Structures are given as structure tokens and as C-alpha cells.
């Protein structure tokens, strides 16, 4: 097995501390030398962000994988950051509960990594994102000082919400070592309904109609491009169709049965074509495909560049169209109910900068949208401006928060939006 991170990060060595003190010690030493430290969870999202160039120490959280506390009837669980999502899911399932956050490669992805990267999946429409579930954490700031935020209760108005501040900060403010999550009961039943979309106008009509559905979808997904064209799970997608619509439904058996019937009626009234219904193992397979889409292995030899785009939900269809016009051989998964679009590009990495900076971002800025590179193949070397875009108006404020939490810019230097310290 290759050392996690070796492909993506310029590591001089890999530390594998077994406890909080070990993590704090490692950060403190990097801070004293003012050299970078790269925290590593399961290594599944190391290609998210710009490629760091300065050599530094890798800090694996893999050995911090213990369950700390699981009072199941409080609907909370506290685990160390290195626990994998699969392990967490197993523990929760034993009590009939789950964390309804979809994460690719759950056998490797860790709780700390999921929190740091915060890439929502299909169920964000009905269930929210990881930021809605994190209620407490322990972390080590860039000087090596451990601190805690939040607590272990589901409702807490004491002090600032440091949990959400750290969520999605790509490990640049602190190294997360322990997390308390709110969890939910597992629904009794889960089903997916898939139907083909003849043209883009039709797509927007159905999506707009779903806003007034009397069902409660857990996910509203739009799929398009070669990656989905021959997927047997989606049923027959006529070649003339531009895309497919997938709606996820969860609840008690009686609720799901009723919602399937009701949704078919509603889609029929809006001019939807006959739909395919997936239940049980088939549904699990398609949920898995939707979740794994951004990181699924590419059929060819080269890993694709994957973009992460956010717009208002009513701009989803237009944006998907734009993406497919700019890259006709690319594939798209849109979490259409939330306006989040993942695009697996067919373009070579060296053409991505032009696509993003010259075409996509200018179009999106008029719609209040955003686009970043979610992953790039090893060696592509896309820099911070291509990956994250130009600095926004709040950048100076964010930079001063960074300076407060990691004064010597030790944590994940060069990966996120922050300037490297001048030397």
C-alpha cells in the first residue's frame, strides 16, 4: 500500500500520532519551524484544492479512530476524527440510526476529513449537510494549542459556533481530532424514482413542479452525459433524451409507498415520461452511484478534472446546459434541488483554466454562483486561482481569521485560498 498523501502532497515524512497530545506536539514542532503540516484523514480528497508546493510533514489522523461516546437515545455520537464513515455507519446501524450525509469511499473517508472538506451529496435536499450535524469538536490550532467548540447537546447557544467555522475550512484553521455529531433514526424504507428528460425546458418544468410536490423528497438529482447514458439502473434513457431525473424518497414503508404513487401522478401531470422505480438493493446501488460519482474511477487511464458548481436551484438546468456546451463529452450530476452541480470533465487539465476563468466563472458571477475544482488528476498542478477562483470581497476578513488561528500558516499551506506567509 502506498503512503496516503504521497501522490498529492510534498511530504518529507508521515507522522501517525495516537492521541491528541501527539497531534498537538506535531503541530507545535511545525509551528516552531514555520514549515507546512498537511493533515491527512483517509486520503480520499487530497486532490481537492490547489497542489501545495512547499515540502512539509504529513499528519495522519488514522490512529485516532476510537468511539468516544455513543448515548444512542440522545441521538448524538462522539468519535475521534480518524474513524472511517463505514465504521461510524456500522456503529449507528446497530442502534437503528445513521448520519444522513453521503460520502464517497466510506471505507476510507474519515469523519475529520468529511468535516474539513464538506462536500454535500444527494441527501442534502431532504437531510441537510454535515454542517447541520456537527455539534461539537476538539481541534488543535496552528500553534499546537488544543481547544474545543460546541458541546454534546443538540441545541446550544453558548459562545461562537466554532464547529461550523471549521467545517469546510480544509484543515487550514485547526486539525480536527474529535467530533460530536447529531444523528437520525434510519428510515424504514428508501426508494428512488428515475425518469428521462426529453429537453431542458422539460427538465426545468419538472424541477419547478417538485417544489410544490406533496411528497418530501430526500434527494432531487439531474444526471446527464456518457457516465449515465448506459446505466441499467436508470432504466431506458432514450438516446433523444438530454438527461435523467432521479428523486429519492425515504420514510416508513407506508409513507414511501404513498409518496411513490403520488410522485408518479405529479410527474405525469407535468408531462413526465414513465418512470422506473428502484427499491431495496437496487435503490442502494443507485444511491451508491450517485454518491460515488465525483470520485468513481474513470473508465480510461486518466482521472478527470471534477468541478463543483453552486447556483440557485432555478439556475441548475441552465448551468448544466452551459457545462455540456463547453464540454460536450463531460458528465454531470446535479443535486438539482440545491443547485449544486458536479461535472466530470472530458477536457485535459491544461484546458480547464481557460474553461473556468474565461467562460464558466464570468457566466456564473452574473447568477451569483460559484465554481471550484473538486479534484484534479495527479500531476495536473492546477494552482489556487484556477481551483478557487479570484478572491472575493470577504477575503481580507477570512485572512485575518486564518492569521488568528494559524499565525505562521503551517496548516495545509498552499491548498486553500490563503496567501502563503512572506518569507
Amino acid at each position: 500500500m502506498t503512503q496516503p498523501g504521497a501522490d498529492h502532497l510534498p511530504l518529507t515524512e508521515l507522522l501517525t500520532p495516537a492521541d491528541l497530545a501527539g497531534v498537538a506536539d506535531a503541530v507545535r514542532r511545525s509551528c516552531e519551524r514555520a514549515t507546512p503540516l498537511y493533515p491527512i484523514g483517509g486520503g480520499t480528497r487530497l486532490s481537492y484544492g490547489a497542489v501545495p508546493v512547499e515540502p512539509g510533514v504529513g499528519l495522519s489522523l488514522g490512529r485516532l479512530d476510537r468511539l468516544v461516546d455513543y448515548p444512542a437515545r440522545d441521538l448524538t455520537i462522539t468519535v475521534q476524527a480518524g474513524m472511517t464513515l463505514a465504521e461510524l455507519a456500522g456503529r449507528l446501524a446497530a442502534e437503528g440510526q445513521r448520519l444522513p450525509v453521503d460520502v464517497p469511499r466510506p471505507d476510507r473517508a474519515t469523519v475529520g476529513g468529511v468535516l474539513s472538506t464538506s462536500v454535500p451529496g444527494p441527501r442534502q435536499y431532504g437531510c441537510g449537510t454535515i454542517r447541520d450535524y456537527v455539534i461539537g469538536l476538539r481541534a488543535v490550532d496552528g500553534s499546537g494549542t488544543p481547544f474545543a467548540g460546541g458541546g454534546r447537546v443538540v441545541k446550544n447557544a453558548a459562545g461562537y459556533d466554532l464547529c461550523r467555522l471549521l467545517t469546510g475550512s480544509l484543515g487550514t484553521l485547526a486539525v480536527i481530532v474529535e467530533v460530536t455529531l447529531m444523528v437520525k433514526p434510519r428510515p424504514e424504507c428508501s426508494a428512488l424514482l428515475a425518469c428521462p428528460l426529453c429537453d431542458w425546458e422539460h427538465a426545468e418544468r419538472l424541477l419547478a413542479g417538485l417544489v410544490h410536490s406533496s411528497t418530501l423528497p430526500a434527494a432531487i438529482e439531474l444526471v446527464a452525459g456518457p457516465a449515465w447514458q448506459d446505466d441499467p439502473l436508470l432504466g431506458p434513457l432514450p438516446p433523444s433524451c438530454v438527461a435523467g431525473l432521479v428523486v429519492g424518497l425515504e420514510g416508513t414503508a407506508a409513507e414511501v409507498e404513498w409518496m411513490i404513487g403520488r410522485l408518479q401522478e405529479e410527474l405525469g401531470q407535468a408531462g413526465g415520461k414513465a418512470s422506473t422505480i428502484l427499491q431495496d438493493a437496487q435503490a442502494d446501488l443507485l444511491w451508491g452511484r450517485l454518491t460515488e460519482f465525483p470520485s468513481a474511477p474513470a473508465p480510461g487511464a486518466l482521472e478527470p478534472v471534477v468541478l463543483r458548481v453552486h447556483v440557485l436551484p432555478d439556475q441548475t438546468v441552465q448551468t448544466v446546459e452551459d457545462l455540456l456546451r463547453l464540454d460536450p463529452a463531460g458528465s454531470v450530476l446535479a443535486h438539482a434541488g440545491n443547485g449544486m452541480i458536479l461535472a466530470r470533465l472530458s477536457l485535459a487539465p491544461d484546458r480547464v483554466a481557460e474553461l473556468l476563468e474565461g467562460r464558466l466563472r464570468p457566466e456564473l458571477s452574473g447568477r451569483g454562483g460559484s465554481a471550484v475544482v473538486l479534484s484534479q488528476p495527479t500531476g495536473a498542478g492546477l494552482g489556487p486561482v484556477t481551483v478557487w477562483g479570484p478572491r472575493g470581497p470577504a477575503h481580507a476578513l477570512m485572512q485575518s481569521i486564518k492569521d488568528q488561528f494559524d499565525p505562521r500558516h503551517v496548516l495545509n499551506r498552499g491548498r486553500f485560498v490563503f496567501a502563503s506567509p512572506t518569507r
Partner: protein
Amino acid sequence: MTTTATASLVRELRRRLGADNVLSAPSELVAYDCDGYTLERNRPEAVVFPRSTREVAEVVGLCGRYDVPLVPRGAGTSLAGGCLPLHGGVVVMLTRMKRILHVDLRNRLAVAEAGVPNVQLSRALAGTGYHFAPDPSSQVASTLGGNVATNAGGPHTLKYGVTANHVLGLEAVLGDGSVLQLGPVPDPAGLDLLGPLVGSEGTLAIVTRVWVRLTPNPQDYRTLRAIFDTVDDATNAVSAIIGAGIVPAAMELMDQGIVAAVEAAYHFGFPLDAGAIAVIELDGPTAGLDEQQRRVDAFCRQWHAREVLQAATAREREELWKCRKMAVGAVGRLSPSYCIQDGVVPRTRLPEILRQIVEIAARHGVRIVNVAHAGDGNVHPILLFDERDPTQVARVLAAGRDLLEACIQCGGSVTAEHGIGVEKLEFMDRQFAPADLEAMRRLRRAMDPAGRLNPGKLLPSRSPEAACGLAETARNQPQTP
């Protein structure tokens, strides 16, 4: 501030906002010397009523030049002193910024100014099939800006979450007078500033506009009222329901003391010897509700419920909610004054905290009755007293301290939805370690380096001198008037 400096500041405020939008006469200022927390009072130098974000920014800029603290205020319903002008300065009233700017059903969001009362947004959404989920008991008066500042909750947070889960974007004025807009579309190329801004009690920025997520109305409801002999039976039933994987929209608990008050006031026909009454509401697609209701009913009976009644009609449902919502008001009949506390424990520790509250009441000779959002472990003990009697006031304060301490000991928090304000400052370093508080201070330093936004709230000063220093600064003559 010196009298001349104050006069000069007021003159400039008047010139920019118009004389009608600035109060400075002592007789006018007295109404702003406290909020819903009345034990501490201090008069501000001026109260301003900006009508736009630009005007808020001008006020902030001006206060920067005079080095005067700012206290943002909505309806002033804070029970923790969040709007108390502790160090004087300028109170910024957001109540004239009360326009609902846009209801966008396709994108399931609404945009409103910070001064819009929570209930006004609900009314504007009537008939759309959507609602704004946070419904604090203060919702008739409290504003969206205030809800954001305290991360407000309400009885439905068990299933639908708190304000933080429903804010998609904010426009806010920072301490240097610049305007920040976050959202409503997420931008992963940066830090999640919405997270810490919600619940920051006006200490990081003055929120002027809010983009909120709209939640679809449930298709149907089942509302039950269960009467238990003991509080323990009621909390065990709540725990069993959660353990069975049922998430009711609300699970409200009233103890014997509050039931007696409600009964005396409204004659609902509740048995006066009942240990506790639970109001449990299920919502969702009709198809699943009857089965869930049967299971909830069975759990209540398994835990010795004496009676489980269900509301058969919308009117009966309203009646059931009425008795819960009027409970606090009914307390007014029991004593001349009362103080509603807010604490939270892990839900399974609810029986323990309620037992401790009984002991604390006995120890201090204070009558305490309880309502609780049982599903969240959020207790609202109501302490009854007569504020004209200083010894009673002292006993109530001591009992309040003990019960918040008990919440911390149970692994909980000293506030679930009211905020820290000034009332609970002394508990911050009991609930958090010094390094935790230092991390919060760093965030505050980064966002408001001059420390002019609602100073003295949420975070204890490291030393009393630091707070005095700020007050001293505020009294200094401005450099560039």
C-alpha cells in the same frame, strides 16, 4: 463620553439619519436601558433608527470615529441582556428595517430585512405551502435579526433544527463600517462565516438582511396529550419514543406546578394531581401518521400514562397547543414576578436535571415550575418571586446559578436558545476551558478588532480591567470629530 462629544455625535447622527430617527433626550433613552433581562440597566448615549444598510454602515462609521460602542437591537425580547447598553454608546434599532423583500418559492427562500418580526414572515408565507421553521415563543415580537443573533429555536427544533439550519445568507455591517454579503449560494472557496455569525449576539457584525430557507408545510398532523403520574414516567416515555426511531415534530413537557397554573388560569380540565403532561406532535405525510401515533400512544401507556388524548380536529389541536403556549403567561397568576431560565442537557439526563431542580427549589426556598422541550433536553425552569423583596431576588439569583451549574454538570449547556448576553457571562469559563474561550476571542479579534460591537457580551473579559478599559475609551474625546 464627554457631554460635548456626545452632543457632537448626536448632531452628526441627526444630520445623516434625520432628526426623527435619533433619540438622545434622557426621557426617551430610558426605554432602552435594558431588554427582557431587567436586573441590570444602563442608559445609552443615543438610540438610532436606520432605514437601510447604508444608514447602518454610516452609523457604524461615525461611531468608529468617535470610538463609541454600538449595541444592535431588534424587538428587545432578549432574556439574557443581549441588548443591554453595558458601556453606553449607541443603540442601533433595526426595527424600521422591516420589509420582506422577496419570497422565492422556486428556490425555497425568502429575503427580509433584519427588523421583520418572525411571525410577520410566517403570515406572509400563509397559503404558499411553505413556512419559516424556527418558531421561538417570542415570535410575535422577536425579529429575524434577533433570531439570527441568538440562533433562536422553539418547540419544533427536534425535527426541524434551529435558526442556523435555516439561514442561507446574510448581509451585515462589520465593525469598520464595511458591508459583508454571504450567500445565499454557497461558495466553497472560503470560510463558512455564516456559521459563526449566527448566534454571535451582535458581537461580530450587525446583521441587516437575511436569506432564509423555507420549509414545506407538513401534509398532516397528529397531536397527542399524555398525562403521567410522575415526571420520570413522562421522560421515560419520551426516551422510548426516540429510541424507537420516531422523531416527533415536538415533544413538550409541563410539570405539576405549571399545570396547576394553567388550570387556574384557563380551566382546561387538567387533573391537578398529575405529575407531568406531555404534548407530542407528529407531522408528515398522512400515510405514515396513524401507525406512528399508535406507537407513540403505546409507549406512553407502557410508561403508565393515565390518559392519552388525541386532537381529533384542527381546533382541538389548536387548543392543545394553546395550553402549552399560554403556560408561561399563566405563571403571572402565581406570583408578581418570574424569571424564565434556559438550560439544556443530553436528553437522557432530563429526569436527573428535573429532580435536581426540585432539590434546588427546596434548598433556596424558591418556587420553580417547569416547561421543557423534552425532545431536545431543553429545560425552561420558571422561578417565581416578588421583585420588590430583595431577599427573594437574591434567593432566585442563587437558585438560577445552581440550576445552570447543574446543567453543566449533566454535560449540557447554560443556554440552548436565549444566548449568553450578560446574564450568563459568569458561566462561560465554567462551561468552557480557557483555550476554548481564547479560540472564540481570536475569532472576535479578527472580525471586530476595535471591539466596538456589543462589547461586554457573550465572552467574559479576561480581566475586569479590560472591560473598564473599553469603557474608558468610550468616554474619550474623539480624535477627528
